[in-house]
């Protein structure tokens, strides 16, 4: 379908189904029930899943295919956000010009950073990109205050010119009149499902981004990138100039990051410098590796996984724990709550860190490899070599 083989089509349809049905799938528990806190089907969170999914898909084009580990991709995310908010300030609250500009500015920015950083490979490349991102962060925080509004963060004010704003246009972000916050709520028995316009716009862009990445993976360009990852020496002696290939991959992934940053601003028209900080760059690395670097759906899974657990773990507090363990004798209950306490609430990073370590140690191929192993358990009849050929991460 659309130039994809049957296996890729299935992956695409899987992602499409997950994205379209997310408001239902992520709300499995009735509102008001004790388990409702595990629901993740509210627009704010789902938008984050999808936006960071786009970010990670783009990152995977660089890291998964060429093996160049960039530690500065958050810079492009931040640049995308700033560009989008500027469009809101100067033109109107329509998201289309904002997204276009954020992709273009991120592309220009990544051409520059990529051109300089790609002169080195391995750890030196990582350090160079990290240095650039931290530099951008600090500049946005201080010197560039007139453009970035420094610590406060860039936002839209009533006094902004908004030259294209017509009388009666929405004052919140919108797609030609369709407000991003517009939500249709479906009540079904005890369940309640929210279908938000903003979420669906992000989800459609995710599908487009995913489709494009599949095409890139299966193209001669993608094959060359994988060759560069595998053996750069041979690439040079094969008559291929590796530099423009890696730069192209870098710019494409920068544009994905810019799109993600623009979308963040479209959902909430605010951009702060902390979006460019190294922790944000590190997060996308974690998402990609956790899901499975070099696989097609891995980055999307990793992004969803991290954002989901970040949200769930940080929401659980001691009161909730006391409810859970209320059936125990008081003394024991307190001991258990004390033990679990560091792992929840503000300690969610700890839990996520442990999970990340477990995945990297036991499943080097990420969640995708985990899924394949489970799949193999259930289909032992398939000859083992066919299964392992299908299960190679680079496929």
């Amino acid at each position, binding site marked *: 379908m659309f130039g994809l083989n049957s296996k890729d089509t299935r992956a695409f349809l899987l992602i499409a189904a997950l994205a379209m049905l997310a408001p239902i799938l992520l709300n499995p528990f009735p509102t008001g029930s004790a388990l409702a806190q595990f629901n993740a089907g509210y627009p704010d969170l789902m938008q984050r899943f999808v936006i960071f999914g786009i970010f990670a898909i783009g990152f995977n084009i660089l890291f998964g295919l060429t093996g160049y580990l960039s530690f500065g991709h958050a810079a492009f995310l931040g640049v995308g956000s700033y560009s989008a908010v500027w469009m809101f300030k100067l033109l109107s609250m329509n998201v289309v010009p904002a997204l276009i500009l954020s992709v273009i500015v991120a592309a220009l920015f990544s051409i520059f950073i990529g051109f300089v950083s790609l002169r080195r490979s391995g750890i030196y490349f990582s350090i160079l990109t990290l240095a650039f991102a931290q530099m951008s962060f600090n500049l946005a925080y201080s010197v560039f205050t007139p453009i970035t509004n420094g610590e406060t963060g860039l936002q839209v004010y009533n006094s902004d010119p908004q030259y294209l704003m017509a009388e009666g246009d929405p004052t919140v972000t919108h797609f030609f009149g369709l407000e991003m916050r517009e939500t249709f709520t479906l009540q079904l028995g005890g369940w309640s499902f929210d279908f938000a316009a903003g979420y669906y716009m992000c989800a459609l862009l995710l599908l487009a981004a995913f489709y494009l990445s599949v095409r890139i993976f299966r193209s*001669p360009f993608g*094959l060359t990138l994988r060759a560069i990852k595998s053996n750069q020496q041979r690439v040079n*002696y094969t*008559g291929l100039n590796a530099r423009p290939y890696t730069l192209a991959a870098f710019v494409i992934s920068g544009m994905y990051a810019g799109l993600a940053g623009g979308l963040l601003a479209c959902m909430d028209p605010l951009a702060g410098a902390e979006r460019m900080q190294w922790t944000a760059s590190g997060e996308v690395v974690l998402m990609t590796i956790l899901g499975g670097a070099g696989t097609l759906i891995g980055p999307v899974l990793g992004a969803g996984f991290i954002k989901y657990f970040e949200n769930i773990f940080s929401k659980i507090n001691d009161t909730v724990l006391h409810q859970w363990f209320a059936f125990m004798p008081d003394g024991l209950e307190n001991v258990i709550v004390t033990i679990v306490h560091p792992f929840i609430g503000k300690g969610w990073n700890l839990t996520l860190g442990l999970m990340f370590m477990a995945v990297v140690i036991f499943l080097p191929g990420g969640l995708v490899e985990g899924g394949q192993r489970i799949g193999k358990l259930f289909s032992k009849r398939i000859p083992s070599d066919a299964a392992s050929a299908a299960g190679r991460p680079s496929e």
Partner: protein
Amino acid sequence: MGILEVSDVNKRFGGLQALGNVNLNIAANTVHAIIGPNGAGKSTLLNVLVGKLIPDSGTVLFDGHSVLGRKPYEINQLGISRVFQTPEIFGDLTVMENVMIPCFAKRDGAFKMQGLASILSQSDIRATAEMILEDVNMLGKSNMTASSLSRGDKRRLEMAMCLVQEPKLLLLDEPTAGMARADTNNTIDLLKEIKSKRDITMVIIEHDMHVVFSLAERITVLAQGTPLVEDTPDNIKGHPKVREAYLGEAQV
């Protein structure tokens, strides 16, 4: 006029004269071996030919073009392919993909952005790759991951990757290093077969005299960075200077 003309090439590494006034003229469609004891400058010479090293002085002309100052990928685009001492292949990719990449490089040049074309639709590239894999007897393994191949098969694959670009000149850096006698003989047969099927010039750097004397039409003996003598294999065998410098007392 030879296809490769090396004139007065000098290369120093600090105090060591790695190459001193090397002159070499390699005729088209011949198999030319370069032999010499360890440290004679064979590998340095090869690295100069592929653009990895730039000599201090001298000229290297390939097919009328100077190779000096060109990057390795540019020299490859001129028509020089290189086989390494340890096979350099794309270990993570399948055998088929390994051969397709040089095909793309040959067809599309050093860089061409084809982000949306599907590999599967490149039937001409696929057909060429299959033909060459058939030539080196690897067609049955085209879906295997290259890193899982045996050493001999890796060597065959690397040759296929070079040959599929139809190079005018094939440089072989100790193609049988570390091989068992049977594998060595297979490689010799493979090279003979390759030579018989197409117009190709080969330059072989080799320690194994058995390989050299089975394949070479001309032999250059290097010693301490300078060519000692250049002649046919039969004359080299009996040459007193060569015996002294290289072959020692070993009877070949």
